[in-house]
């Protein structure tokens, strides 16, 4: 897995507590961030215990725009997740 360390990632949301990560498509566009996530503690706000969580979200539209005319190499993920 290729990644780089960047301690300047601030994330726009205040609830992130520690590790954060972001994914950027390589196309030079204004909105090239397609992935964002990190660790947070939000479970207690929804009635659960105060436990740590780690999650991310992928911008579906931005990924599709980044793909352009290229056909995805593998589509089974999206297919199965849609049920």
């Amino acid at each position, binding site marked *: 897995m290729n990644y780089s360390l*960047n301690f300047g990632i601030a994330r726009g949301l205040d609830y992130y507590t520690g590790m954060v990560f972001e994914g950027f498509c390589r196309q030079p566009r204004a909105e090239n961030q397609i992935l964002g*996530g*990190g660790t947070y503690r939000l479970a207690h706000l929804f009635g659960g*215990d105060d436990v740590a*969580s*780690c999650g991310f*979200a992928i911008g*579906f539209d931005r990924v599709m725009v*980044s793909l352009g005319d290229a056909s995805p190499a593998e589509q089974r993920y999206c297919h199965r997740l849609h*049920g």
Partner: protein
Amino acid sequence: MTYLIFVAMFGTAATLFLWLRDARIFFRTGLPGYRKAAYHGVLYGALASLGHLVALTMESFELLGLGLILASCICRGRSSVKRYGKTRGRWNVFSEAFPCAGRIRNNRQHPTLIKGISSCSRNHGEHGIFYRTRWRRGVQLNGGCGRQDVSGVTGKYAPRRLKILNFLPCAPVRGSSEKCMSLRTRGGAGSPSVRRLRPRSYGCILTRQKSPPSRSAGAILRTASGMSAPRKGGIASSGRFGVELIGADTAMADAEVIMVAADMLNATGVRYELKVGHLALMKNLLSGLEPADQRKVRAHLDKRDDDGLKETLAAMGKPDSRSHLFPLPSAVRFRRHSRLPGRSPVRSGSNRHLQPWMRTV
């Protein structure tokens, strides 16, 4: 009165039963297709009842009554209802033996519909389950049951150890629709990396926000060109898909989530660059500022806005802090930050979360 009256009774009963069934499904799920079917069922039920009345009271018009009942049955059959649960069989749909909120809320086998994580924890010990609350008429709509092969998503990390609690389609509520599902390990021995995670639960949520109609020229052009709408002051139109791991406060868990994210992006074929960081360093450097000021500075750093950072720090009376903060995005080795003035979170051990994370990295 002939034997045809029994045929009329059967046809009327079937029409009324289907109407009540559609209405019941709508009240329990809120699906718009069943709402439409329930409304139409009033008409078809009335037509069938009229036909039954004609066949019962006027013997000479018995065939006319049967014709009315037949017409109501035909119209009822031709009205298309977008049904769900196709994989569960016709009989299950017919008999309503499909999962819905009222049936599953207290069923331990389908914890995704249990309200709140705390109740899930009580029922399932260490297995926390992600959930998404969406209420409509007092019924929690999301969640569901069923198994699917998810080895394509997480098979690398927990081969054949996950079962998916499938989702039910949620009714559009205030311009949005959601589909939720949870992944949960079956327990037992998994791969070593998974075995260390507590709890072994994943949650996925697929959210689609529908943008409200807009007549502005900019919105139309953006829609036509496929560009995203602006974040601020514009119309948000984005589809997001996420995964989260709840309850594991270890660096291994964080690393696994990152690997899942990377694998998902790899599967799409998009060429991307993944950047990983930790907020402890930045928070430590900003610890002397007020929370509101910290948010401003973080916003500038997030946007790589050097000019804005200069102005903000100058307004705060701390222009020298820029030289400490702005190298953060370009510093790819933590040793470079150890030369920064101030109290290093790693050297001083002030942040216990950063140390195992740095060891893992």
